[in-house]
């Protein structure tokens, strides 16, 4: 039972609280932490739940990729020229042995797709975490310190943003050579700046809030204020931006691989698979080579984007409250009209 908040200094109740008062005090609305509130809202949002399920499914499949490969009996890079290719050398379509068909080298498309998911997700997560880390640090420092530090850092962000991404990526990769590491670094290089800008803007407004002033009046150092007072208030935009950045990173990785600048074949990535489908217009005879990797790419990026939107709504319901209210009212007037 919640304790009645009896207040030793100011309580003016003349007598001991009587039975009726005691009876009432048990009737408190259970207080919930911000996290609980967000979680409740997310659980009520069907879009969020469906998107989360899709993402969870892909993650589980990616983790279990070796198990699935063992179960199917096909390795990701193994070529089955006899079973996977027709006598004339063309890939076979979806059948009992090859669930999603085989590719032009007779490899199992299903197994490759799952291994591709693994790689795509790892690249996306690593790149996103890296970009968020750099972006937050730079943005927060710029916004909090203001002055010359801000000028230099903002200039750096603007320069990064004004670089032609693909062109720059191509020249960079041709200098260093394509690899997993290069792919991650290229993605981070082009993703941290927008985050830094968002974080900088937020920090500018947070640093003017009264609790920051309160911390200053207590004698807190800049570093402490940034760490303890500013950073926790940046979690919302960082989290939202993070979920929206993952699909961007997945697409970026696919683009690089498609152009042959990302992770090198024969390693299965969605971009490599799409590239294989387009070499020699393979997709005109083997549609499955194009459709399944594209569908995977589309559904995962869509799920991440929708989840990102839902997370933002759940974290800051005020932004969408009015839209929802209007919807409710419309429904009501419809009901009344009936």
């Amino acid at each position, binding site marked *: 039972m919640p304790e009645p908040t009896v207040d030793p200094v100011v309580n003016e109740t003349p007598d001991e609280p009587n039975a*009726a008062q005691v009876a009432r005090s048990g009737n408190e609305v259970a207080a919930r932490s911000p996290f609980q509130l967000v979680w409740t809202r997310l659980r009520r949002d069907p879009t969020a739940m469906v998107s989360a399920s899709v993402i969870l499914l892909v993650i589980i499949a990616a983790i279990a990729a070796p198990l699935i490969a063992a179960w199917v009996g096909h390795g990701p890079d193994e070529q089955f020229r006899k079973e996977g290719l027709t006598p004339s050398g063309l890939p076979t379509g979806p059948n009992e042995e090859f669930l999603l068909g085989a590719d032009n080298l007779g490899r199992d498309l299903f197994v490759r797709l799952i291994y591709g998911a693994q790689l795509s997700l790892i690249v996306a997560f690593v790149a996103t975490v890296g970009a968020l880390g750099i972006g937050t640090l730079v943005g927060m420092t710029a916004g909090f310190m203001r002055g010359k530090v801000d000028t230099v850092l903002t200039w750096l962000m603007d320069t990064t943003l004004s670089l032609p991404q693909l062109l720059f990526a191509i020249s960079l990769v041709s200098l260093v050579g394509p690899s997993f590491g290069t792919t991650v670094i290229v993605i981070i290089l082009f993703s941290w700046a927008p985050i830094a800008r968002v974080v900088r803007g937020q920090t500018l407004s947070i640093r003017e809030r009264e609790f920051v002033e309160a911390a200053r*009046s207590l004698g807190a150092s800049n570093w402490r204020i940034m760490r303890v007072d500013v950073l926790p208030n940046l979690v919302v935009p960082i989290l939202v931006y993070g979920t929206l950045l993952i699909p961007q990173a997945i697409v970026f990785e696919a683009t690089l691989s498609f152009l042959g600048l990302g992770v090198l074949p024969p390693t299965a990535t969605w971009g490599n698979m799409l590239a294989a489908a387009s070499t020699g217009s393979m997709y005109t005879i083997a549609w499955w080579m194009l459709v399944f990797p594209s569908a995977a790419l589309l559904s995962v990026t869509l799920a991440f984007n929708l989840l990102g939107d839902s997370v933002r709504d759940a974290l800051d319901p005020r932004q969408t409250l*009015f839209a929802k209210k209007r919807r*409710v009212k419309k429904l009501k007037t419809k009901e009344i009209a009936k």
Partner: protein
Amino acid sequence: MLLTVENLDVTFNTGDGPLHAVRGISFELDHGQTLGVVGESGSGKSVSTQAMVGLAAGAHVTGRALLQGRDLLTMNPAELSAIRGPQIGMVFQDPLSSLHPQFRIGWQIAEAIQRHERGSAKNVRARVIKLLDEVGIPDPDKRIDDYPHQFSGGMRQRVMIALALALRPALLVADEPTTALDVTVQAQLLDLMQDLQREHGTAILMITHDLGVVAGVADNVITMYGGRIVERGTRTEVLGNPHHPYSKGLLGSVPRGGSQRTELQSIPGQPMSLLIDQPGCPFAERCAFVQDACLDSFPDARDISPTQKSNCILPADFAGPVVLPTIPAAETELAKSGDILARISDVRIEFDGARKGLLGLTRDKITAVDGVSLDIRAGETLGIVGESGSGKSTLARALTGLIPLSGGTIEFEGHDISTFTAAQRHSLRRDVQMVFQDPFGSLNQQRRVGSIIADPLVIHKIADGKALRTRVQELMEIVGLNPEHFNRFPAEFSGGQRQRIGIARALALNPKLIVCDEPVSALDVSIQAQILNLLSSLQRELGLTYVFIAHDLAVVEHIAARVAVMYHGKIVETGPVEQIYGAPSHEYTRSLLAAAPHLDDVAAEAAAALTMKIDEAR
């Protein structure tokens, strides 16, 4: 009868379940009358009127609201929109956001007129000019083409009143119309509304939390709590001879003239949650006279007089004026010593203003504080009053070392703080602490309360581990919070409790001086009284010195021993409370005091009426 509201009931569907904001209220308002609706936040006073005129989005509304015989609640949006303007005018609290910043004010008023009436542009313009003249805007024929930002807050609220009255509505709904304004402006606006009422016979529905405003303008008063009307009657009856324990509690919570040696009668506890649907009296939880019957059903109205009705089971003779008990003037030992704790000498504070010149290399200087000298004596409460823009908050921040001085010195215990090294300044923070105005903004929402209160102790490396937690819980207990709640987030506390958290944080380092910047202005009156009483008792027990900054004259009179009046960055008058309030020497102080709403006059009026009745009975 102009407006008859019957059984108005408003429910919102929220993520936490249905929120029953208004629970079957009925009232009437006649032509030319002013009805004051008083209550704290969450009482349903604003929602009920918004629901009435179809502005409560997403609400489920039942009951009847007859305006000149037509039910507003059954009208469709088009019909309602045709009524808002010609028949109901509305003025809201915030004059900053109620006007569109991108359009000229004349255009906005003309638009409202043309929405309902046809007329040539020339005629409408003439009408708008006449309206602006009526609401006291100087040079209306020139100002009509100005944009909202070219007007002050008070002038903008005048424009809003002109807009609301443009079509001569029979009913004016004013929702906290003067809350955001300074007292002198408030007084002018209330006068203006009364003049216009007299001229045109407009009925006014005045919604406010400020009992002083109601005392000044209302004919009849309704007290609301938890979505219900708990008491109604004429102004003198409800304010001078209240019956319902909530009305009494409200009146006992408000500091009024000559209240400095009195103890405010705060209402214990927190406002109820409207998410709980309770059949009984909503006030039962906080009522000192609660009985079992109060919990079962909401009591019927009891006639106190032909015009006064109270929904309370207490006998009619419970009604009576609220008299605050006086406490002996107990000066602390520290205050008796008369030592000077801090001395402010000729302090100037300037801010950079707009850039000027071709390259923007030079800037205008804005002087916020202009040559202020003050002594702060150990153990006293020094009140600083002034209207917005007077520089009082800037001075407070300079005193706590948050803003550098542009000139002059501040000495603390005899040492000039501007010559301090970084380390000395760091330790000065221990002795001077601050309590902020905004109980929501001054606490970091993302951190647990225990860690917020522990902040000063951690920063100054005074305690850690178990000792830290013990100290935090001790502090929470001192300020009247449940020490078990250290693990909760600020969002789980009400405004008053949050202000207690802020006070606990300020107390953590055992400071000598606490600068309170409008610590109660964001709080409801009953909570305000709790906090004021808490500050007073803490001062007695811990020997604190306060600099108490407020715009509310009555609050300062209640808590301070000496008062400084600030105006345009200067201190125009300093002296003991009795002198400033009793015999003000400066013109500005006099006008401030004259403008402040006086609850006392009504109480005196009521007392006189009561004795007359008794005499007649004899």
